[in-house]
């Protein structure tokens, strides 16, 4: 037997998806989080903060942003090689 409702849903209603994607996207573009240079600025400052204490490679810092409807997550992954010499704090 053909499931007509599933058939119609699959083939037709893409508008609700469009609406939801737009709402999430625009909420971000209107907020300070929507600044296109935000991630780059964060990465630079985080890198600078850590480098004051530990020697590290700039390429080993990954910054990711996942924009959700209610909350966004900022994921920062810093790879620090073991056995590095600690820098003198407050230098």
């Amino acid at each position, binding site marked *: 037997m053909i499931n007509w409702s599933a058939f119609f849903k699959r083939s037709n209603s893409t*508008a609700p998806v*469009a*609406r939801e994607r*737009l709402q999430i996207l625009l909420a971000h573009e209107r907020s300070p989080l929507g600044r296109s240079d935000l991630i780059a600025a964060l990465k630079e400052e985080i890198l600078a903060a850590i480098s004051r204490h530990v020697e590290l490679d700039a390429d080993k810092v990954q910054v990711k942003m996942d924009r959700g409807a209610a909350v966004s997550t900022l994921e920062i992954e810093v790879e620090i090689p073991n056995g590095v010499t600690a820098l003198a704090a407050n230098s």
Partner: protein
Amino acid sequence: MAKVVVVTSGKGGVGKTTTTAGLGTALAQSGQNVVVVDFDVGLRNLDLVLGAERRVVFDFINVVQGVAKLQQALIRDKRLETLHLLPASQTRDKDALTDEGVARVIGELRSRFDWILCDSPAGIERGATLAMRHADVAVIVTNPEVSSVRDSDRIIGILDAKTEKAEKGEKIDKHILIARFDPARAARGEMLNISDVLEILSLPLLGIIPESEEVLRSSNLGTPVVLNNPGSAAARAYLEAARRLMGEELNVTVPSGKRGLFNKLFGRRAA
């Protein structure tokens, strides 16, 4: 008092020029003294849509640079004597428009006309920001489609930041005009519906122009749809939108797909 209206969108191809011609014609038909100004320097098309492409002698740039007088560049419509066109230059680029020159020309137009409709180029660059610079009212042309709605949101932000009124701390009057609306596709859930677009952009609705062959046919002929086929759904939508622009309170009717079926069965022309 004269009103400067910018017809803008961010995205290209959504119907800015058709809308400028449609609203301009509808306003002029109701006796208002109207000038439509093409800001799309280098890619002018308003002359073509209005059927005045062979009558362009001097253009906006010539007037801005003082080479020609405003009177010499204005083209009066052959069908409606209250409708005028200030064409863009086809050979220059947008850098030829200076801030002071544009301000002076708009000031001169304000003293001569009731309505100054500025047809903005696509994008958010200089041409677009100059077109909106002196506006009292903005008509944001949007198609019910994700990229158009996103770009409209962006242009709304720019209207609130870069216009003369915004810089003085005043509010610019903003309206959404939905063009290329396909009622059948909206009913099937393939196209964002009107309430989705309005909810997302949270601005009042000036009108809904249905996607129609009549609009294309009118552009082919160089006669705005309002004059070419006043009974068509698109023409009626522009006429009503113009009345709302003049301050009348009219309910917006969402075009239904049923009329299309009716037309299919009983002939294509409504009028």
